[in-house]
């Protein structure tokens, strides 16, 4: 099912699909091989996870989806899909 993310601060119209969410992450993190991230990927195992990565993720979610995620949202997520579900619930 395709839904569109439209929020008060819509800067781009990004489709709210897991596929696009992964693509958006791959665009921001250039060390990442395309196709490596899957729905059940535990992102802390793929990234050398640090607070700068968290900021990059927050910035991407804000510009692409107009949604704000916080430290707690990231902390309680394990997989890419967990993050995706949180973003989806906020747009």
């Amino acid at each position, binding site marked *: 099912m395709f839904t569109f993310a439209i929020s008060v601060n819509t*800067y781009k119209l990004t489709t709210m699909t897991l596929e696009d969410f992964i693509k958006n992450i791959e665009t921001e993190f250039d060390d990442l091989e395309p196709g490596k991230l899957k729905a059940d990927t535990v992102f802390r195992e793929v990234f*050398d996870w640090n607070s700068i990565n968290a*900021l*990059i993720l927050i910035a991407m979610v804000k*510009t692409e989806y107009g949604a704000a995620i916080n430290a707690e949202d990231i902390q309680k997520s394990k997989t890419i899909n967990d993050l995706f579900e949180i973003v989806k619930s906020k747009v």
Partner: protein
Amino acid sequence: MAIFSIPNVRMAGISAAVPRKEVSNLDYKWVSVKDREMLIKTVGVEKRRVAEAGTATSDLCFASAEKLISELGWDKKEIELLIFISQSRDYIIPSTSGIIQDRLGLSHSCVAYDIGLGCSGWVYGVSAMTSMMHSTKIKKGLLLVGDISTLTASYRDKSTYPLFGDAATATAFEYDESAPPIDFNLESDGSGYDAIIIPDGGMRNFISKSSFDYKKFGKGIYRNRFQIALNGIEVFNFALREVVPNMKKLLQEVSKTTADYDYFVFHQANLLMNETIRKMMKLDKEKVPYTIRQYGNTSSASIPLTIVSELREQITSRKVNLMTCGFGVGLSWGTVAMEVDKIVCPAIIDY
């Protein structure tokens, strides 16, 4: 809503001073080479100026002010207002403004006071300065804004140490009934007071032996309670939440669009944060100058320092419409929009 316009005051000149000593984040051995590279790329700070022990913010302000007054050809007797804005004052008691008033040789008939603000300091300072000059008709005023932030950052705290640089600035204002109004939108949210904080040393937590005990707050983050703590994610989210609506509200209030402004000068917080805000505001790169790469986050000095460093040629030769926005510690944020027309601007002073 604190949205207002102040007429009858023009900006006459602006100057900045930085310490001579330059350090590179490529040499920040507390973190790995890979982390240093990521830091430079994402946070955007490659080099920073660092004050030598014993140099105070007022020394840098004094150097900026002396140079600016001499290039303006001002009669010092006519300077009747001096505001010093900083979070790194010379002493706990007294205020720093008086020390600078005396050192500059200004008359006793000069209103001098301090305001304690950081990232939003210059924007708030322009509002305090112009409002008072407008209401009192004081002819000439000096706004001195800057910080020495490197002294209070822990070397073993990767979340603060590589971020900050030292700088101080002077901005000169003249009473002028032909000046176009200066527009402001100022806001505050003290519920986030601890997002950027030095917890000990004030009256709430008076300085004690335990203020100097180092504690671990995370991987690569060790500091004591007399050093600055910065909750990066909280500040990041605050800026992404508040800055764009603040600027848009002001634009709406004055019936203008971003196309009416030549340059947007932001507090140099962090490259990723500023670039996200730039994209949210749909601003062209050419209209958004940066100094974070060569000077770091210089706290209250970052907006005037960026104007002097990046827009000197423009502001000294023609009419330029500027919109500037400061945001951070407090939490405090605000936008000021103004026209500057062939003002005096000496090159950055190496102190």
